């Protein structure tokens, strides 16, 4: 592990130690499980964001994509709104819809050459529109027992959601490390121009990455829907910036080609631990955001410190 890689895990460790000293409740097993559970959705969403960041692009569409997916899954599984009961197929459709929205972002980037910042912002608005259409005035409540059990069921002490997140992170890590898609995503972030010289058409891979990111958001939305017990338009609202922050804090750089899924997952844990710990040690709700922001900045600064040199470009 390089110096750059070591920063975020060390920061995570320090924060965990400090919080454990400050709060007896923090260091209970129950709380550890709770943190893992709370990190589950963000971890899955961040898997998607990470791949987009590896490309050197940015993805602001999580909010909209998750909203659309959440409502679609809520009305397709057994629910309080209609008589549909597609079960696992409903979940699949929701994830596919999310992937399709991601695909649209990617296509717009590749075909129209519009920066991802804008395409994903636009797609987010479109997703929210779709969600509002499906919502149609009343929240569809999820009745489907198997989907509900995602949030409540436990295996070896961890909720199913946590396990899903673990599996997602492993899959994403595998994709990043062992598949052409993952390595090419890395390569596109490293030197996009070069790939063309090697006869690789980057367009399809970019679209695939955005599509995969969409799928992760869709799965994240299904998880949120299971947690909340109904389809919410706003279910993804907080995840856009949270996932980007988590990825960057973990060492996945915005310029692309650096970091990866495991880095980002460390970032997710760091943020979740902070949110949880600040509540437990009783920091006033007004200043929690500020304290969290400061710690993030300090963590990144400290992690970056050993690499500092003159003429280094930081955007």
């Amino acid at each position, binding site marked *: 592990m390089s110096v750059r890689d070591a920063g975020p895990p060390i920061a995570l460790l320090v924060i965990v130690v400090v919080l454990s000293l400050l709060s007896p409740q923090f260091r209970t097993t129950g709380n550890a499980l709770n943190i893992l559970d709370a990190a589950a959705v963000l971890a899955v969403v961040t898997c998607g964001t990470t791949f987009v960041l590896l490309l050197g692009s940015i993805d602001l569409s999580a909010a909209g994509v998750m909203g659309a997916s959440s409502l679609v899954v809520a009305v397709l599984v057994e629910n309080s709104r209609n008589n549909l009961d597609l079960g696992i197929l409903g979940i699949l459709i929701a994830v596919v819809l999310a992937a399709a929205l991601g695909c649209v972002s990617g296509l717009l980037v590749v075909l129209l050459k519009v920066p991802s910042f804008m395409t994903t912002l636009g797609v987010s608005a479109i997703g929210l529109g779709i969600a509002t259409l499906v919502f149609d005035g009343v929240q569809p409540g999820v009745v489907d027992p198997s989907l509900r059990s995602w949030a409540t069921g436990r295996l070896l002490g961890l909720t199913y959601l946590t396990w899903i997140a673990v599996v997602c992170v492993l899959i994403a890590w595998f994709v990043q490390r*062992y598949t052409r898609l993952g390595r090419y995503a*890395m*390569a596109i972030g490293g030197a996009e121009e070069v790939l063309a*010289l*090697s006869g690789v058409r980057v367009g399809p891979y970019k679209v695939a990455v955005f599509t995969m990111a969409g799928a992760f958001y869709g799965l994240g939305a299904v998880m949120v829907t299971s947690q909340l017990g109904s389809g919410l338009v706003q279910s993804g609202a907080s995840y856009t910036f949270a996932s980007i922050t988590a990825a960057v804090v973990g060492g996945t750089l915005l310029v692309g080609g650096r970091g990866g899924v495991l880095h980002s997952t460390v970032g997710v844990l760091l943020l979740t631990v902070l949110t949880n710990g600040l509540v437990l040690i009783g920091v006033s709700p007004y200043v929690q955001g500020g304290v969290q922001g400061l710690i993030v900045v300090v963590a990144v600064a400290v992690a970056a410190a050993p690499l500092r040199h*003159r003429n280094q470009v930081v955007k």
Partner: protein
Amino acid sequence: MSAEGVVAQRSPSVVLEVRGLVKAYPGVTALDGVDLEVRQNEVLGLAGENGAGKSTLLKTLVGLVRPDAGEIYVRGQRVRLRNVVDAANHGIGMVFQEQSLVPNLTAAENIVLGCEGPAIRRGVYRWATMRALAQEQLDKIGSTIDPLARTDSLTFAERQMVEIAKVLRIEQRTHNSPVIILDEPTSVLEPSEIETLFEQVRRLREFASVIFVSHRLDEVLDVCDRVYVLRGGQSVGEVRPADAVAGDLHRMMIGSESHEDHYHGSAVTRDETPRERLTVRGLAGAAFRDVDLDVHAGEIVAVVGVHGSGREELCKALFGAVATTAGEVTLDGERLDLTGPRAACAAGVGYVPAERKVEGMVGPMSVADNMTLAKQRVGCAGPVIVPKRQNDIVDKWISRLSIRTPGRRTAIQRLSGGNQQKVILARWLVGGDVRLLLLDHPTRGLDVGARSEVYRLMRELAGTGVATLLLADSLEEAIGMADRVVVMSDGRIVAEVPCPPDRKPSPLDLVKEMV
């Protein structure tokens, strides 16, 4: 048109043939009916000025540039190359002028990139296979690089080797011998690395054909079996190295008599008494230490050394671009502030970086903007730009250095390399206050003509009292241009060799000190 360029009947040994290739860009005709043939087991040289169309021609051969007209034949068969993969399938591969490796991947991945074959099955990497494949390629060229090392952790020369290993992958695609294109592979290599490369080229000739491009004409004559000369997008002739010298080649390239001499001529005006301008005492940094150095006003001092000798870092350190840990530097007796380029600029130090594209020019900005970037006060009244005044100054320098550009508002990236370099040099001259010039490979990638113009400019500046520290492109250049050569090795200065116009040392004398 060429006398020998077109062969009437296709001899079986011709592997690649190009006829009447035309490629026009807005405003330029890069290729204007080029003919070319490459034979089995030969090294074919390609010479021409900057912008003659060499790279464009080669890029059409690997499918990166679609020609407007003309035909390409591979082993007598007309082909249409749509992309690099097409070309590779026909056995043509290229090492590009600018390095084209993905820095954050392993050497192995770069070597197989784009045609992974068995290294990827159903989209999934098989690292062991990939490693073996890459190792096989590296073994071919006798390189000992670890295939799983990240590319950005390799030295420049090692990366060049990776590129060559990569291009050799096309052997697997074709049963016949491949055509390997090397576009200016030597411009950034050290002499010893160049020698290694040439060994590889000669070895390649055993089973492949090689197209070789370089602006160092003696190199071309040395390694090639035949040399084509391009001028203004046309093939103007073929030269057999056996019965030609660099001068002949150059004459064909520019269409008139050459006057290449970078060895000091007679009439160099000098101050009578040498005046100390730059003094360096005990300077140390991450890559060098205990550096003592003096440069007089009007003196050109060349620093030579192999990769890792620390000379580039020293040069940057004098400009404040890398940090120093100890030492004292004065300029005209005053302490030189090394905290950053800004301070160095203000003190009258100018720096021309080696990586022109990344560190020198701002591509999309205009010639005028690039020229005034460092001396922004030029043409200003107080803090306010007076456009007329600034334009006049820029125009004067454009004609003074005969920079060939459509105009001062043209984006610098549209200029040829030599002209770009002149703009960067002019950047330090427009202020009229430069006292020390740090030139890091100022002629890298420039053609002979552009190079001699840069030489002329350097001499003229020296004549007016500017002290110059030169990191030369080749030992010949260093010896030719410098009044004194300083040899660095392992971060220290190990020797100083005087180079007066009448008593130039031989390159061999220097090499002895370097290793």
